[in-house]
């Protein structure tokens, strides 16, 4: 990190921010289009070609709306709660690597804002602060539906963060590091499998952890079928019931940014990150591979939403504590055991 001037870091961060905010807007468009195809519709078509200007129209609409604050609300908390969600969601992008160090215009440029040596945990930490936006928003609305949504959300995020963390431990054991960059570059290596050379993606060596991670990631971002905090059928909109205009939009955007970050996170950890044909020689190809993997993961998110009914709250918690947690611990134990065998410390 020290080998580049700080202004280049700022430029890289700025570019990533711009790309992230734009892509977040277009994730809403992407979700609406894909969901529409699942449901035998065509989705937005009126604003721009294929509805491509729809996110802009939505943004204008949301900014132009009246910002209502209920009388029973705790005004100050109500005011800044959405920002917590939004800011922490964006903060997590700081440790996602988009490639290694490249030479550009005679400067060496790192394609990541920072390479924290606990990068994976940093993402979990931002997630755990992000839950405050939900609880405080629910509480400060002074609405019982919001409160119920907030309580559900708190319990859900705490439970699933545990599983999210535990599912990563296997990778930490294999790689011996928590830095996302190093984990990613470990997957650029290939292993020979008979006559074939295949990429050493951790989804191959840690399939159980990947499944657990996907489930926990869906639950952590409050998406269907785990969208209980905002279950629109029983809790109206959960913690967001009383929010309107830009404040609602902040929650909305925070959710989509979390989705994108989780997709990038999963791609980096399990699907090789930027690894792919040609990625080692041309860095734009690497970024393209990462984006494609993230888009595939986002597609999976939307697929789930279009297909599955919603869990009940007790079933959700039961799933977390009775099924997923023992599996995660089993995965850790197995990985540690094989690592010991590999080190020659057992047999």
């Amino acid at each position, binding site marked *: 990190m020290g080998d580049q001037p700080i202004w280049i870091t700022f430029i890289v961060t700025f570019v990533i921010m711009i790309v992230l905010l734009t892509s977040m807007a277009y994730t809403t468009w992407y979700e609406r289009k894909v969901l529409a195809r699942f449901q035998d519709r065509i989705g937005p078509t009126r604003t721009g070609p294929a509805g491509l200007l729809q996110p802009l129209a939505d943004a204008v609409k949301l900014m132009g709306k009246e910002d209502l604050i209920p009388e029973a609300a705790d005004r100050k908390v109500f005011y800044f709660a959405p920002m917590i969600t939004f800011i922490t969601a964006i903060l997590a992008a700081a440790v996602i690597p988009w490639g290694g160090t490249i030479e550009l215009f005679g400067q060496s440029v790192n394609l990541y804002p920072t390479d924290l040596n606990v990068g994976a945990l940093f993402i979990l930490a931002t997630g755990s602060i992000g839950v405050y936006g939900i609880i405080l928003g629910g509480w400060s609305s002074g609405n019982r539906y919001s409160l119920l949504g907030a309580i559900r959300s708190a319990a859900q995020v705490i439970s699933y963060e545990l599983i999210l963390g535990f599912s990563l431990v296997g990778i930490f054991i294999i790689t011996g590091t928590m830095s996302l960059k190093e984990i990613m570059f470990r997957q650029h290596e290939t292993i020979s499998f008979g006559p074939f050379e295949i990429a050493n993606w951790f989804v191959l060596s840690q399939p159980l952890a990947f499944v657990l991670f996907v489930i926990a990631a869906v639950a952590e971002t409050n998406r269907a079928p785990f969208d209980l905090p905002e279950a629109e059928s029983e809790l109206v909109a959960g913690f967001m019931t009383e929010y309107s205009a830009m404040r609602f939009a902040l929650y909305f955007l925070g959710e989509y940014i979390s989705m994108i970050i989780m997709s990038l996170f999963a791609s980096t950890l399990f699907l090789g990150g930027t690894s792919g044909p040609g990625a080692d020689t041309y860095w734009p190809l690497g970024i393209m591979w990462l984006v494609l993997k993230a888009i595939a993961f986002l597609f999976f998110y939307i697929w789930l939403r279009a297909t599955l009914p919603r869990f*009940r709250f007790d079933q959700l918690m039961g799933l977390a504590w009775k099924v997923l947690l023992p599996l995660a611990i089993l995965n850790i134990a197995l990985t540690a055991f094989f690592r010991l065998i590999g080190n020659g410390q057992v047999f």
Partner: protein
Amino acid sequence: MEPTKTEFNVMESTQTDYSGTLMVEDEHELASGERVMTLNMGPQHPSTHGVMRVLLKLDGETVIECDPMIGYLHRGTEKLSETKRYAQIVPWTDRLDYTAAPQNNLGYVLAVEKLLGLNVPERAQYWRVIMVELSRLASHLVWLGTHALDIGALSMSLYTFREREMIMDIFETFCGARLTTNMMEIGGFSRPLPDTLIEQIRNFLRVFPNRITEYTDLLTANPIWLARTKGVGVITPEAATSYSLTGACLRGSGINYDIRKADPYLVYDQLDFEVPLGQFGDVFDRYLVRVEEMRQAHKIITQALNYIEHDDRPMMAYESAYVMPPHMGTMTTAEDMQRHFVWVIKGFSAPIGEVYHAIEHGKGEFGIHIVSDGGSMPYRMRIRTPDYVNLGVLPHMAQGAMLADMVALIGTIDIVLGSVDR
């Protein structure tokens, strides 16, 4: 006369419904009830299927008491019917259960025909069966879509509404209206059938079985769907009978009471179909029963259409006193024109007496009770709608359920608030 007093039988009280007794307006009266939270579900809530308000008392997310409050859509149909001539009431019945208007029309029309002693031609009866079964399908499709949407299966509602659209198109071809059809007339049908109708129905019948398979593929084996519906909202057969439930709510509990079989009207005794019965009376059983009823309705429509397709007989009963004269007659003959005038201005005088006629509506027993004093308007018309009575079991089912189950329970009763509030 003094109000009569009878000693109250305490022994019976164990089976009795006390729902709503715990209506504590002041929260301080719940001395030790700090853990009780009152949640007002509705009247503007997405899952109450209209303007219903359910007052819930929650312990955590467990419902300890539930009190449904209805009447936000009360339009006084029964009172209005006392000021309308018999033929004028038919459009009012459209507005009861607006997802299945032809069935409401049929229930009313059959009751009036029973009062008048009218015999309707066989062809009209078959067409009534076809239209009513289509409308039963439409009603069940709306139920399936919204019920699945409540439980969280987002796409289901769009799939079911796609098929409902085809049925609505058939209605539009048949009578010109889609939702509030005003389709049945006292005495049969007075207008000729459109040319494209049969082809349209055939089209629908061809695609529909595959579409049912699509729904069941998406839901019946889905573990989340099973977890949300199995063992939830159990009604024992005894409770179902005691609560006067009808339709799939009663048959889901395993009691065989389908008016089409038990007390056949129209030509249902000449058609071959089966009645599905559930075994355990939970939400999943009611779902299975309704899906199977859709298959049976498809079977009934196919049979009726095959029988009546090339029929050319008249569709209107010829009872000069009670039915409107034919259009051509009104235009050409003096007698018919006079009768038309009298029929429109004055209506007809029904016999003195009272009748109750019940049909198997998509949601249960739809009964019309008419008391006639011999005039051209009903002296008293009572509409027994299935949803209203079925909704009464909600407090019983909700005790001990989770909050998230409430939407499944409201959905499984299959209510339409226009029909509940009348």
